[in-house]
């Protein structure tokens, strides 16, 4: 088990939990749901933020938020 910020570019995993309730609510409304497959599409040139995708949803989040998301290795 790792947190999302530890994933390398193009790596993927399954969302296990989102620690922060508010963040979980916001992410679920943008298509990122516990139990779904998540991919780190791109890491910004300055190493932060990152673009993550889940199905056809694609959002940019900061690494700080990514630490709140735990993922299961595939």
């Amino acid at each position, binding site marked *: 088990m790792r947190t999302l910020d530890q994933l390398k570019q193009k790596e993927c995993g399954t969302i296990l939990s989102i620690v*922060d*309730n*508010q*963040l*979980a*609510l*916001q*992410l*679920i*409304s*943008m*298509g990122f*749901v*516990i139990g779904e497959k998540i991919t780190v*599409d*791109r890491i*910004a*040139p*300055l*190493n*932060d*933020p990152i*673009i993550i995708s889940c*199905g*056809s*949803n*694609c*959002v*940019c*989040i*900061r690494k*700080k*938020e990514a630490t709140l998301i735990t993922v299961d290795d595939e």
Partner: protein
Amino acid sequence: MSDKIVKNSTSQALRVLLVGNPNTGKSTLFNTLTELNQKVGNFPGVTVDKKSGYLRINDKSVSVTDLPGAYSLSPNSEDEKITSKIVSETENNDVVIAVADATNLSRNLMLVTQLIDKNKTVVLALNMMDLLQKNNQEINIDELSSQLGIRVIPLNAYVGKGIEDLKQAIVSAQKPTKKFIESSEFGSLDDNLIRYKKINQLVDKCIIKKGEDKNSGLTKKIDNILTHKYYGYMIFLSLMFLIFQAIFSWSSYPMEIIENAFLQLGGWLSEVVPQGILSDLIVNGIVAGLSGVVVFVPQIAILFAFIIILEDTGYMARVSFLMDKILRQFGLNGKSIIPLLSSTACAVPAIMSARTINNTKERLITIMVSPLISCSARIPVYTLLIAIAIPKDKTFGMFNLQGLLMMGLYLIGFLAALFAAWIMKIIIKSNEKSTFILEMPIYRMPKWKSVGLNIFSKVKVFLVDAGKIIIAISIVLWGLSSYSPGNRIEKIEEKYSEAIKSQNGNQLLMNQNGEYMNEEELNAHIASEKLEASYAGIIGKTIEPLIQPLGFDWKIGISLVTSFAAREVFVGTMATLYSVGDSDNSTSVREKMIDAKNSKTGEKLYTFATTISLLLFYAFAMQCMATLAVVYRETKSFKWPVIQLVYMGALAYFSSLLAYQLLS
């Protein structure tokens, strides 16, 4: 009796609200529905732009309101708060059109099913059907409609397909036939998880999958270049360079036309309206004030055109992605890039666009520092002063020195904004978590008609918001510079009219060349003397000791006072002060200013040191009532505009002081 009729007609008029996720083509649909019948106002009590318009369905007038994009009814930003508030306040006969992206049905249905469970009269407008077709996918519309219990209209807002069906669906819309889920606690995480699972089952039933998502494949390829660690920044910087080139080269011609048109209008009015206070007020107060606002429309329109295109194509989200880490060091946010860029046209719409920033502190800092970025109103001041400070053909290597100084002023404004942001990041305390979550939409061609309508409505906001304040202040300033305590101004008039009579014509005063002044020169001289005696002149002389260390005299003091409403007024005031009869002739203003002597020392006034000091003052000082008003509106408190006025004033004063003392 008449009251009753009005009430009846408003309660019967159909009201339609457009709700949907960002990037679903909601605004394009709004523009397609209402075309030019739209206006921008404010939602009562809140500060978000209310875009509303009218359309006719079966000869009935229907009002349409475009609500800010939202992902759910549990708000995460200022924009989403408004949407959920307005939706919760809808009445029974209001129709909510939920606009959804057909290529991303499951996510879009989160909001749609929340609307259903709130028992709103919902019509689902399934947009982007063309992209769905490209992916070789199909949605079983009837199945979707019966599963959700609402009408579903497939459409392509880009080509206007399905619009007629949507209109008919609006007039015959019903409440949902059933609830989507029975939830114990609406909006909670559990509620949303249950919702999500049920949506997935439903989408599986309704989507007839044949192909795969082609559009996001293309988007990823484009992203490889546009967000590349070197090319990404290079492309962004060259794009900015191109935009500024375009703004300055394309706008000069229309700006000239507008200026001339207002001059002619002023001339015509002064002939038509009987001479006197009224004519003076109209020509020198109102028309001059109006002209000062309208003249910036070309620059603002061009800049907004670029910003809207960059946003509509999806590029702006990538810029935010690239810039977030850098901007974060200064207490800003990747999303701050839009207000910061818009500020180069005008801080008023820029500050309004800061609403998409979820974090209050970052939004506030963005609002506070945006006016430090050099806006288009500073250009005429910069142009005039640079021409005084540096000879035209002086070069530094291969670069024109005047151009370099202009660029330097933009750069210094930008750096000052970052510096101020950094200070505020340290000072302002906030317990709120700083979040930055931004959807990366797929790249898409903008719809040009919609871009045009968006530019139109943004320019309208600028004209109305900035315009009414500038005109009001112009009138006040006109009063300050046309009246004096007691009857000093009348005495000057008497003195000269008697003198002219007794001296047999105009042989009254010598000009600089030792000849008698002609009538025009004499009138200009009288105007200058009147201004000196007026309230504005008194203010200028009163503040002279304060601004002397900056290298300014009382005449510059007057200009500082008159350009408080809007910076560009500086040029006009200088023209009056230096007795240039023909106030639009900036060449002669420049020459007079170069020749001007300090009234105390008798030395040249506009030395290099004074001019640079003055340039810095105009770069930093908060001389814009319209901006202060919009900051008040956006922050809902007097505290922030006052702090802004004071900190920018202090920054201007001390940097001018430093520059003058070092250079002189």
